[in-house]
């Protein structure tokens, strides 16, 4: 063998080993396992059986081994080697998160159970999102390696550490979404994956490895049931129980759906048997699917082509292949149809921006042909396969793939991602926590960036004190001054002119200017006293009268400026007897004439009423003057004046016989004619009782 070939082979072995870490088989020692006789024999059988499966080193076999080891642990749960093996089994099967408990237990009981225990512990922590603890264990494991081991294993360990660092970053910047299991109509404890939606009819095609697989056999390569294609319809708010598709879609070997044409009439299928696999497509003819034919221009020799996605216009096809000429192992390849649309051209590798030295798996092109979703163990995966997105620029180059983020991606395998036409929903397969078992199909609801939530602004009116707490600003104008009249008082005592005894008399005050009666009061019978408040500024006539008495009259003026004046008017009433006489003080004549002024009439009316009442009474009305002027003229004037009075009284219904007019001129003065006041008093009219 040429040296070159040997070296190449050696390199290949190293490379292979650098990309996989084989778990060590640790033998469970009987002496360490046995704790008591009871139950030991049965338990030991499970240990041996489990180990038998473990050594097969196949996914399906690890599941079998797990069942036996768990049973064996019931007998002795603290055996380090058994715990170690159980942990490894979990890591190799569908529930890697559960490995932590057992590996931790193994390490706790015996840190030296296996020289690689810390590597697996690191992985177990990683699956449980405990990245700091994972890194710590990876680093400690790395420190424990010999130089030779380090050379061989460093890439693997460093990769794991990088995944943990990615995991921490991705968790700190999580994507806002819901990730919901599609439910038990689709998912079971067997693996379900590769969802392909025909949205128009709400139909889902997917792949599963179930016990009822066509042919009922397990793939000897991985000891798992062969894949079959299933179909489910969304009705009444949920996915109906999935139905297995019939031949020719499903065969007794691996049949996995990978894509469907936009009209739903062409199904792309992966078929594999012994580790390789090819892409097929089947046409829908009325009510059945035709036998799938190989996609000859896409498949190549004994290489494995899996997962295909065809652009909406059917002109570009992306697929996964492990053929030579890629960046390493499985890569994404693209093929373009010829101009006439009839043939696929020779595929091209999508290049080192998208592809990595690690496996790329599953691919999906968006409906506008610009975004490509795929899974990869490279780039900044947080562990296993993560879903990435790359964008095709106008110049045909692809952007640096972007991890679509946590919680969609997990430390486990996250594959077969696709978007709904409105890009609100995504679908993929994952072995994340909370499934029915192994991989399940999930729906992702993208919520987009966090929506701003707005609190309400405060009430602006409260910024102003007056509006927050109104106050009164009333400044009422003061009351105005009101003019008041200060009253004067007329008071006095009414007595009998002869006896001097008090008389209860009626006193009437008249406003001489208007003739209006201002007040009427009575004097007290016991005292004869009377009091009358009167406003100033008037000329009053005061008349006092009582039965069987001549009335008394006089007039007086209260000046305008008078305030609180007290005017004393004592009145002596003349009893109505012969010789009784009164001065008619409120009878007035025009100057030098005998014409009565109308202001005289109230007084004369009173006299007339008296005479009408007392028909037996006969009175003399006498006129008097002062001494000014001639005797003869004064005589005549006084006579005429007396007559005027009589004439007026007669008009008031008084009998002529009751009254006579006499003029005395200046012959009977009652006061001194040398003074003005005396002369005024002398100018008068009197009434005297002649007969009664």
């Amino acid at each position: 063998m040429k040296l070159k070939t040997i070296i190449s082979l050696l390199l290949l072995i190293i490379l292979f080993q650098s990309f996989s870490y084989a778990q060590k088989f640790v033998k469970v020692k009987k002496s360490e396992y046995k704790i008591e006789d009871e139950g030991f024999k049965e338990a030991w059988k499970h240990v041996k059986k489990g180990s038998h499966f473990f050594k097969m080193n196949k996914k399906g076999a690890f599941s079998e081994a797990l069942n036996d080891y768990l049973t064996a642990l019931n007998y002795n749960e603290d055996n380090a080697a058994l715990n170690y093996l159980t942990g490894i089994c979990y890591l190799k099967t569908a529930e890697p998160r559960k490995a932590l408990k057992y590996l931790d237990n193994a390490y706790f009981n015996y840190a030296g159970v296996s020289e690689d225990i810390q590597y697996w512990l690191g992985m177990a922590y990683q699956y449980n999102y405990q990245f700091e603890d994972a890194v710590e264990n990876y680093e400690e494991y790395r420190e424990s390696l010999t130089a030779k081991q380090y050379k061989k294993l460093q890439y693997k360990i460093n990769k794991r550490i990088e995944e943990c660092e990615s995991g921490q970053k991705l968790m700190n910047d999580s994507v806002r979404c819901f990730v919901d299991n599609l439910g038990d109509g689709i998912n079971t404890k067997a693996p379900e994956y590769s969802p392909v939606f025909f949205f128009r009819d709400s139909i889902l095609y997917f792949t599963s490895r179930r016990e009822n697989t066509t042919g009922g056999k397990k793939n000897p390569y991985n000891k798992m049931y062969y894949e079959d294609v299933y179909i489910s319809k969304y009705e009444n708010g949920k996915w109906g129980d999935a139905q297995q598709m019939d031949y020719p879609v499903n065969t007794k070997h691996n049949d996995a759906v990978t894509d469907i044409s936009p009209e739903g009439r062409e199904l792309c299928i992966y078929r594999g048997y012994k580790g390789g696999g090819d892409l097929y497509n089947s046409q829908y003819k009325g009510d059945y699917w035709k036998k799938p034919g190989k996609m000859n221009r896409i498949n190549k020799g004994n290489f494995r082509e899996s997962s295909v996605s065809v652009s909406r216009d059917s002109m570009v096809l992306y697929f996964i292949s492990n053929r030579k000429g890629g960046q390493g192992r499985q890569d994404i390849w693209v093929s373009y149809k010829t101009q006439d649309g009839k043939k696929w051209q020779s595929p091209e590798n999508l290049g080192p921006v998208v592809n990595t030295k690690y496996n790329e798996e599953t691919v999906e092109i968006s409906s506008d042909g610009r975004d490509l979703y795929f899974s990869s163990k490279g780039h900044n995966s947080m562990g296993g396969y993560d879903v990435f997105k790359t964008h095709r620029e106008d110049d045909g180059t692809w952007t640096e793939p972007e991890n679509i983020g946590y919680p969609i991606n997990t430390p486990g395998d996250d594959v077969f991602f696709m978007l709904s036409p409105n890009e609100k929903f995504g679908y993929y397969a994952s072995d994340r926590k909370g499934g029915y078992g192994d991989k399940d199909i999930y729906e992702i609801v993208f919520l987009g960036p966090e929506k701003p939530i707005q609190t309400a602004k405060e009430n602006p009116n409260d910024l102003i004190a007056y509006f927050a707490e109104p106050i009164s600003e009333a400044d009422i104008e003061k009351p105005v001054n009101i003019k008041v009249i200060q009253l004067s008082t007329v008071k006095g005592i009414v007595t009998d002119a002869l006896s001097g005894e008090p008389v209860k008399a009626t006193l009437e005050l008249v406003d001489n200017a208007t003739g209006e009666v201002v007040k009427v009061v009575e004097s007290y019978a016991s005292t004869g006293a009377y009091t009358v408040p009167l406003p100033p500024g008037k000329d009053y006539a005061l008349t006092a009268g009582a039965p069987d008495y001549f009335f008394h009259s006089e007039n007086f003026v209260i000046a305008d400026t008078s305030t609180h004046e007290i005017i004393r008017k004592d009145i002596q009433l003349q009893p109505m007897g012969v010789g009784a006489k009164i001065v008619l003080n409120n009878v007035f004549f025009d100057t030098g004439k005998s014409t009565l002024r109308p202001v005289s009439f109230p007084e004369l009316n009173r006299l007339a009423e008296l005479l009408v009442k007392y028909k037996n009474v006969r009175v003399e009305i006498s006129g008097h003057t002062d001494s000014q002027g001639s005797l003869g003229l004064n005589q005549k004037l006084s006579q005429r004046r007396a007559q005027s009075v009589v004439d007026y009284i007669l008009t008031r219904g008084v009998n002529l016989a009751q009254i006579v007019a006499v003029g005395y001129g200046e012959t009977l003065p009652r006061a001194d004619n040398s003074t003005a006041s005396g002369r005024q008093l002398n100018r008068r009219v009197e009434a005297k009782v002649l007969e009664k």
Partner: protein
Amino acid sequence: MKKILLILFISYFSLHSFAQRKKITASGQDAELAYNAGVKSFLSQDYINAIASLDKAVELKPNFGKAFYNRGVVKNELKDYESAIADLSVAAQLEKNMPKVYFARGFSRVNINDYKGAVQDFTQALLQGYKKPNAYYYRGVAYLKLKNYNEAISDFNKAIAVNSGYAYAFHDRGSAKRLKGNLEGAAGDYRKAAQVDSQLYFAYNNLGSVLNELKKFDDAVKAYTKALSINPEYYESYNGRGLAKYAEGLQILSQDKKKEADKIFNDAVSDFKKAVNFNNTYAEAYNNMGVVRLKLSDFKGADEAFTKAISINGKYAEAYANRGTARENLRQFKAACNDWNKAVELGISHSEKYIKGCK
């Protein structure tokens, strides 16, 4: 003997005094009498009868300027501002040198949001020699409403110069400063207002609001609490305190202390509950309650709160947008889309981004 004389003296004096005290109203003064009756009724806070009396006064004497003025003042008390303005305008014509007429009319105008007219009237009052500081104060209020903050502050300064204990002027000067962005200045004035009048609960409330903006959350909460100690039913302060706690919670959340933040958020929700307890039509408090519940991931509770806010104010755009977020988190995507569409319709432009995914 002395007793008799004393009795006589007292009797005479009483009689004389009684006589002396006898007065009667001169005639022709009915308008004045009615006016005075109006004043008397007003002072007894019998405003209806005051109006009736003043009505009579002006009917009897149509040029009775003071009666028109007083009637205008009474109408202000009765919040019949438009009618008060009519009366005060007549009074201004009849009483040429009565600056308080312009003050009273300016006051009426403030109350009907005629701030420009109010400024003119207060200015006229001051030009005519109006001496009281409240003319400056209310003109300052009018300027504040007109967003002329510098003029407002100048007037509040003048009011304070006349009356150094004018709590309202301090308070509103603080508000003017706040609106100008001078938060520290505003806080100082609110404190001063409260110092002058310790019962000014709204001063404490506004102080809390400013402190909240200054991110002094502890002090803000204390200020709101003080407001509530004075007026336990001041729901605005419960709302404000809730907002301060919410802001504080956000700050703590940004330090990755979720448990501590959640405790404060729960306290905030309690405050919003108290606010709506005192005012069950307080849509803003319901909205704010919903916001905090969103932060607590109580999406159902948030939905209920936003729904209540919307039931009070059917055009509450923010509440629709917020409820969309709550409903999205409750996986009610159609309902969420409906809400965002409504929010866009009502003017919340950012919601347009979210309805793209609704098709």
